[in-house]
């Protein structure tokens, strides 16, 4: 299993925030860039390496995911906003760029709505969290677990190295099940945010919306829900990329870097 092989230039720090132990990966120098990962980080963060040339890239593990500890008392997105408020204070991060992917995009949007003065620029990559008129797309829980990896990408070869050879690998299965449980605590009742739309007018910082055109998990049409409420947001889509657009397209990584520079 190679899932937790993170790029060597990232240094690991352990932080205990309000009783929950988490790991923060940091590399590079320059203005701080915080990346909030999606509902799993087993596909690594190789995409973030180019950013380290211009930014101090900070990648924390969310409680209940990857190498962070569990905290069953964290049952709503706002608990994660409060967690990051504490962590950013502990890291001495006053103002920073915030990049959120998928669940991390939902979380980043919530953080930025409440603490906009701390977010220099906001990037939302294939963010989850808004409900369309039709059946909510991207209900993670409707997907058979064995199909999730192939639904994440346009080109399967991109994530293949991060998957165990045996599809029934118990450790990998157990780790994903644990993260599914964390996700269920947050959004089993509603796989979308019922409150966020009401406050999105507060996203007044420069904002970039990034989407893979072949996103099978959260189809690119979902971008409209975000663009309606953040009319000034820049919007870029990438051909030949699925949900993991940063992992699949270097152009997307570069676009984020240009926007933040």
């Amino acid at each position, binding site marked *: 299993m190679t899932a937790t092989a993170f790029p060597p230039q990232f240094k690991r720090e352990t932080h205990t925030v309000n009783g929950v132990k988490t790991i923060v990966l940091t590399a590079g120098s320059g203005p701080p860039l915080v990346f909030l990962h999606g509902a799993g980080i087993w596909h690594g963060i190789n995409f973030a390496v180019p950013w380290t040339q211009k930014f101090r890239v900070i990648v924390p593990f969310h409680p209940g995911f990857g190498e962070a500890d569990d905290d*069953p008392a964290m*049952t709503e997105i706002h608990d994660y906003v409060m967690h990051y408020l504490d962590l950013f204070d502990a890291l001495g991060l006053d103002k920073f760029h915030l990049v959120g992917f998928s669940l991390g995009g939902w979380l980043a949007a919530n953080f930025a709505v409440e603490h906009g003065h701390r977010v220099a620029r906001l990037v939302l990559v294939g963010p989850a969290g808004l409900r369309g008129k039709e059946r909510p797309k991207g209900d993670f*829980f409707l997907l*058979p*677990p064995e199909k999730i990896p192939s639904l994440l990408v346009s080109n399967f070869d991109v994530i293949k190295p991060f998957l165990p050879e045996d599809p*029934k690998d*118990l*450790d990998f*299965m*157990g*780790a994903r*099940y*644990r993260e*599914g*449980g*964390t*996700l*269920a*605590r947050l959004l*089993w*009742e509603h796989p979308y945010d019922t409150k966020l739309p009401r406050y999105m007018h507060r996203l007044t910082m420069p904002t970039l919306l990034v989407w893979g055109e072949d996103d099978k998990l959260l189809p690119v049409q979902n971008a409209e829900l975000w663009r309606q409420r953040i009319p000034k947001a820049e919007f870029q889509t990438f051909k030949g990329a699925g949900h993991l657009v940063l992992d699949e397209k270097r152009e997307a990584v570069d676009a984020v870097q240009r926007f933040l520079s």
Partner: protein
Amino acid sequence: MSVRFDFMHFMPYVHLPENHKEYHSTWVDFPNKYYDAKKGYALYQRYLAELVMADKVGFDAVVVNEHHNTAYSMMAAPNLIAAAIIPQIKNAKICVWGTPPNLEYPNRLAEEYAMLDVMSQGRLEVAFPLGTGMEYWANPINPSNARERHRESIDIILQAWTQDGPTTYYGDFYTYRYLNPWPRPYQKPHPPCYIVGTGSQETIDLAAKLGFGYSSVFVTKQRAQELNQTLRRLAAENGHHIQPEQLPLQVITYVAETQEKAEEEAIPHIRFFFEDALRTTPTFLAPPGYLSVLELKKRAALADKLHGAFSFETVNESFFVAVGTADQVVEKLQEWGERVGTNHFNLLAAIGNMPHWKVVKNLTNIGQDVIPRMRARASTERRVAAE
């Protein structure tokens, strides 16, 4: 030691379409367009008659339970079944084992069970299952804190039954400003209670703490013995003495003239039960957060080992299956009862898609040749013990 026999019915919808094997599950997402209400009516008539018959041939109790979105069971609301049979069943206890408390408001479940207990003049027994993983896909309840909700629900129900109302309850899941349900149970302080489970540590701990009975379902012979031992020990640590009757042993039972005939008549329906009625997916069995990661890995490893086509030999070897002559069945029940320390047998005697005539034959044989012999043995042993 006295002996007790229950007849448990699942009330399956047996008229599956010819192409049903193409579906990965007969639960959760198995299309309900395949439910034909006219056939359903005929099945209800038949199944209700079978429950009533069990009382007449000498069973001590009839058992019903609850499942959703499935051909496995037509008892989405077992209290309705209980209410329908109470006027027709004169002696047997009525066991609703049961509605998962997470799927109803606790006060309402306390009320419904109290109604049934009063209506049956104190013949109700209840169980508080967590509910299978499948129920959490079918109902709008979060599986990730299901165990916490389950404990709180039971706490509320017991408070409603044991304390004079109105009382208040301020919990993590429910707030009651006036917990004051009418009616109250006929039995005091309340009907006998069980936890139903597949053997996870959490359910055992809960039964031990409350001093409830524990009905393990779909566990292997070896595991059942361990579970009962563990429960007795843990309950004792909590100051409860678990009686043999509190440990019902679930046995797939079919009695015929010869072993060959019994197997010939029963095996196709046991096969249907395991292959078709119980067909589901690992994801439906374990919605996110429903199991601990350790438990999930244990079960995944076990499922891998058990994987393969249905084999009666394997089922017969692993689980409590008594298919044979009355003599053989009596021997097996006697041996298993001693081994796991119970005198309470919960017989699955209407198995899978078994036709009515076989259920009638089976119940008749059990009533005539198994139950009386087991009772006679039990009373002999009692006399011997007394001497």
